């Protein structure tokens, strides 16, 4: 077990800069999730920590030791790959024992460690099988087992669940969570699935174009997104973003249609400032009292069972998503008066997209 520090790490492929300076210190035993869209550089960053990719600039420190120039084999880490990367010509037992044999662990110790991992992962019955004789979920578990038996300083995961079907993914996600609670090994986990990020992470690092947009606990990232990008990326369906202006008194935000939404904390210094206004679909409610709110035209209603998503349109033509719990109470062509819950407004700078702190 150890800390993993990433200090101003950069990566260039020729003229292309894939990672543009990322800083984060992962605590001992912490589970950090790297979350971001495809191509943002998550795998690249992870592979630099693993030593599979050279580091263009900055430092990677594992357990207090700068590892920039160390081979992967000397970094005392274990990695779980997206395609599992099991050794196809070895039995499940040998797959898990390989790293231990190389490190000269004695035979009895190897057997006891593999047996223990096999028990945790319910692989006992498969130890003599080849990977090709296993299902996807079982292979996944062997890959986890191979990492566990090593008892490394840190675990690295590169989208380990993305090759599984939805049900198995949920099941394995819970298993990983349980393992992490039990073993408490420092982990760096790459995914583009926000549910995985929200459920597994102690902290999330949201990445975009090789830059860390925000680092925080899952709830912080959801409740106080640091930028428009994070706001749009986290939450499903995504946050509504509208063009708005702070009213002259600084007490509220003026919508394009003229409606005024009160701010939880007035910002007189920003009077008349144009802003991007973010409201999560689940924080909009149908306004029963018919107070002053924009009438929204309902274009499509998706009933998901537990809740309902309404695709609406504001008078000025802007789309607006509303998520309500329970079954639909409106239909296409209806006009609804909706209002945000108090304190549910997010303001962002129009130019930089950064959050305006309240």
């Amino acid at each position, binding site marked *: 077990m150890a800390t993993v520090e990433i200090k101003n790490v950069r990566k260039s492929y020729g003229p292309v800069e894939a990672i543009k300076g990322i800083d984060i210190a992962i605590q001992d035993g912490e589970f950090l999730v790297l979350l971001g869209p495809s191509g943002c550089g998550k795998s690249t960053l992870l592979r630099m920590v693993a030593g599979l990719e050279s580091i263009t600039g900055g430092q990677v420190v594992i357990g207090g030791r700068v590892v920039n120039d160390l*081979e992967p084999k000397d970094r005392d880490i274990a990695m779980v*790959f997206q*395609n599992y990367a099991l050794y196809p010509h070895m039995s499940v037992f040998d797959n898990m024992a*390989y790293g231990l044999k190389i490190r000269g662990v004695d035979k009895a110790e190897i057997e006891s460690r593999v047996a223990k991992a096999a028990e945790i992962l319910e692989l006992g019955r498969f130890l003599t099988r080849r990977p090709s004789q296993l299902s996807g979920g079982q292979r996944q578990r062997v890959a986890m087992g191979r990492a566990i038996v090593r008892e490394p300083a840190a675990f690295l995961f590169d989208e380990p669940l993305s090759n599984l079907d939805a049900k198995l993914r949920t099941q394995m996600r819970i298993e990983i969570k349980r393992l992490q609670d039990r073993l408490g090994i420092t982990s760096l986990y790459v995914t583009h699935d926000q549910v995985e990020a929200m459920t597994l992470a102690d902290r999330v690092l949201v990445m975009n174009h090789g830059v860390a947009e925000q680092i925080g606990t899952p709830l912080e990232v959801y409740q106080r997104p640091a930028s428009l990008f994070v706001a749009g990326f986290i939450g499903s369906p995504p946050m509504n973003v509208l063009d708005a202006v702070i009213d002259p008194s600084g007490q509220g935000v003026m919508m394009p249609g003229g409606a005024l939404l009160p701010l939880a904390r007035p910002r007189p210094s920003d009077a008349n400032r144009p802003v991007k206004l973010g409201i999560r679909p689940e924080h909009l409610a149908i306004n029963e009292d018919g107070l002053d709110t924009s009438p929204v035209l309902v274009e499509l209603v998706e009933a998901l069972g537990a809740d309902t998503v309404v695709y609406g349109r504001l008078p000025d033509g802007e789309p607006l998503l509303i998520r309500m719990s329970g079954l639909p109470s409106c239909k296409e062509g209806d006009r609804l008066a909706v209002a945000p819950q108090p304190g549910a407004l997010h303001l962002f700078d129009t130019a930089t997209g950064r959050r305006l702190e309240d």
Partner: protein
Amino acid sequence: MQRRVIFDNKLLPYLLLAPQVAVTLIFFIWPASQAVWQSVHIQDAFGLRSEFVWFENFTAILTDPNYVSTLRITAVFSLSVAVLSMAVALLLAALADAKIKGAAVYKTLLIWPYALAPAVAAVLWMFIFNPEIGSLGRLLNAMGYNWDYRLNGDQALTMVILAASWKQVSYNFIFFLAGLQAIPRSVLEAANIDGAGPVRRFWTITFPLLSPTTFFLLVVDMVYAFCETFGTIHALTHGGPGKATETLIFRVYQDGVVNNDLGASSAQSVLLMVILIVLTTIQFRFVERKVHYS
């Protein structure tokens, strides 16, 4: 979706197969049966009469002490050619698989020897090994090593092994390179993270995963060494000095064409055929068990 083509004409499929069947009949089945027929006959010196003699030709060959020595030479030659050409090809392929500058040029150059006619290749080797005009031959003699493959049988055998292997390296190289490139990079990365250095990765991961290719090439290279090295040996040593480089295939030619003993020559080619069949069967039975097919 698969679609099956259905011909109304019952004759057409046979017509389409006919050329291949004809080639097989004319160039393989017919000469082979001729050889079998001749192997149980003795012809007079002018080829006018032939007499059915049962297995006399075979007993004559198998009791000939020279033939045993030919077998030994063939075994040494074939095994050396197969192992040497595969080892060199694997080394070159492993290097080509690594990220190097100019890899494309390097790969193309490695394939050239395959396109060279055996006689031309033999002349090139002569320019290297000839004790009077060959670069390496002269160097060896100048350094005090007594090099003359025209007098020393072991030296001659070494030289034909080198020449025959060299020609087969290209072929093996292509297959090994394709085999290496088919190994998922992440598996090797996983081994690296598990603590294996480059040499260990090669022997515990790469080599076992290459085993289907290695096995295939072993079979192909043995057949090559047995049957297709005639040109190389003929051009370089003529089977000499003495009979030091006379392999089975060369002796078939020697007895049949040069000594005009068609019966003995045919019996030898039948034996050669049997040996190859047995050898290949053994390879499939015993070596293939160790092969991992994914």
